[in-house]
């Protein structure tokens, strides 16, 4: 309920336009992976999903940031049902992969940002390996590249007042890990797939 209000607010504020270029707007189980430049990114992406997909799509977020304040934590944990993962002190027992795979095995979809943090440059950073491990562990789940256009201008890193630039969310064609594709080859291909959506 609160989440839907946030989504409606974001849609109104940013006039966000969803372009489903490579897949249909439905509730198919997917891992949406996108470029990351602003704290609003997951909200912008989530807000354009159809209602039945929203209910079963959870953003993956950094524990250290979203644990930072009570309201922040409430929003991340309760409102958006974020999957909060450890990115600083990863040990064998708190390996985020187990959490994510458990969510996927429960039939839910994920939103992840494989750059591992927000960038201020226009170029995307190299992707972290998590996406590869997810693709390997869950070979039947579609990996959908998504490019968030202009979201970085709405709330750049270090700013707290948002500007309502018109955003668009471009969804590309689903990828799967190819048989005997190496980790680096796959991550390069995935990053290029997000980049290709930037120009469409």
């Amino acid at each position, binding site marked *: 309920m609160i989440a839907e209000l946030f989504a409606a607010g974001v849609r109104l504020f940013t*006039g966000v*336009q969803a372009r489903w270029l490579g897949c249909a707007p439905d509730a198919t189980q997917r891992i949406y992976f996108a470029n990351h430049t602003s704290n609003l990114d997951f909200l912008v992406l989530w807000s354009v999903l159809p209602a039945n997909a929203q209910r079963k799509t959870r953003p993956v977020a950094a524990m250290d940031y979203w644990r930072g304040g009570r309201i922040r934590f409430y929003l991340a944990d309760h409102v958006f049902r974020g999957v909060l993962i450890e990115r600083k002190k990863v040990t064998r027992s708190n390996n985020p992969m187990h959490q994510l795979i458990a969510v996927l095995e429960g039939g839910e979809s994920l939103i992840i940002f494989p750059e591992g943090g927000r960038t*201020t440059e226009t170029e995307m950073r190299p992707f972290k390996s998590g996406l590869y491990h997810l693709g390997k562990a869950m070979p039947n789940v579609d990996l959908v590249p998504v490019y968030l256009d*202009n979201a970085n*201008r709405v709330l*750049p890193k270090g*700013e707290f*007042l948002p*500007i*309502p*630039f*018109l955003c668009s969310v471009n969804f590309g064609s689903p990828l799967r890990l190819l048989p005997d594709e190496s980790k680096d080859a796959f991550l390069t291909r995935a990053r290029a797939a997000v980049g290709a959506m930037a120009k469409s």
Partner: protein
Amino acid sequence: MKLPSFDPQMEVLVTGVFVLLLVASITGFVLKKTVKSERGQEVVLNLNARINAWWVMIFIFFLAMATGGIGSVILFGFTSFLALREYITLTPTHRADHRALFWALFIITPLQYALIGVRNDGLAIIMIPVYAYLFVPIRNVIAGDCQDFLARSAKIQWGLMVCVYFVSYAPALLLLHIPGREGQNGKLLYFLVCVAQMSDVLQYVFGKCFGRYKIAPTISPNKTIEGFVGGVSGAVVIGAGLYWITPFNPWQAALMALIIALMGFYGGLVMSAIKRDRGVKDYGVTIPGHGGIMDRIDSLCFAAPVFFHLTRYFFT
């Protein structure tokens, strides 16, 4: 509470627009059934989307008019906000412009319309060209980044002038004191909007029906000489025909309509030049068939201030 209402003249105007739109919708329906070619169907589809959007826009416009001055101020204020949002989305702004843009959208824009709402036309006429103009580069200097400084500040200043200041001249018409016509300035606003928009519509219709020679091929390839001549002369006829709702006689009304149509034409070209430079066709997707808000009001932006000042100089 007094229910919103119109005087008898306004009722005629509302009925007129309603009949016109009804004719347009029926024409669109007939065309949809008769046009067979694929390209023709595409044009008809876009035409019908435009007509449907017109119903909505006209409804909102008359609703605002019916609530008197404040409704028009809010309507145009909101229009300015949306137009400025489209403009800055298209303009390559810099990270260091963030705070200045926030001020432009959330402080300066509402302030301009608040000034018109409280009938402070003296301040409304200089607030953006003087104070906002000074403020924008100062805020950018505080942000401490001098890369492309002049271009960045100028883009924000220009956006404020076109999207906010010029548009605000339309509701500012309600502040004019024309002897013997107290409380009737809504019809002046109607005259401006009707002539500017009908000029656009007729340029489109004449261009689609008879257009052969491009008038500005490097700026706006869809505009033709035939469309321009048909649209502007049509707008002049409509303007002259509406003289009875204005303080003008038929000849003055025709001349005013000519100036509105010409300024509107150049407004459309200027805003097209920006789009073309940025490599896009429309400012947005807000209005189905038309594009963005800015695509619909570009002619009004340029016509409103000139119409306001001519009326103020000669008729108040």
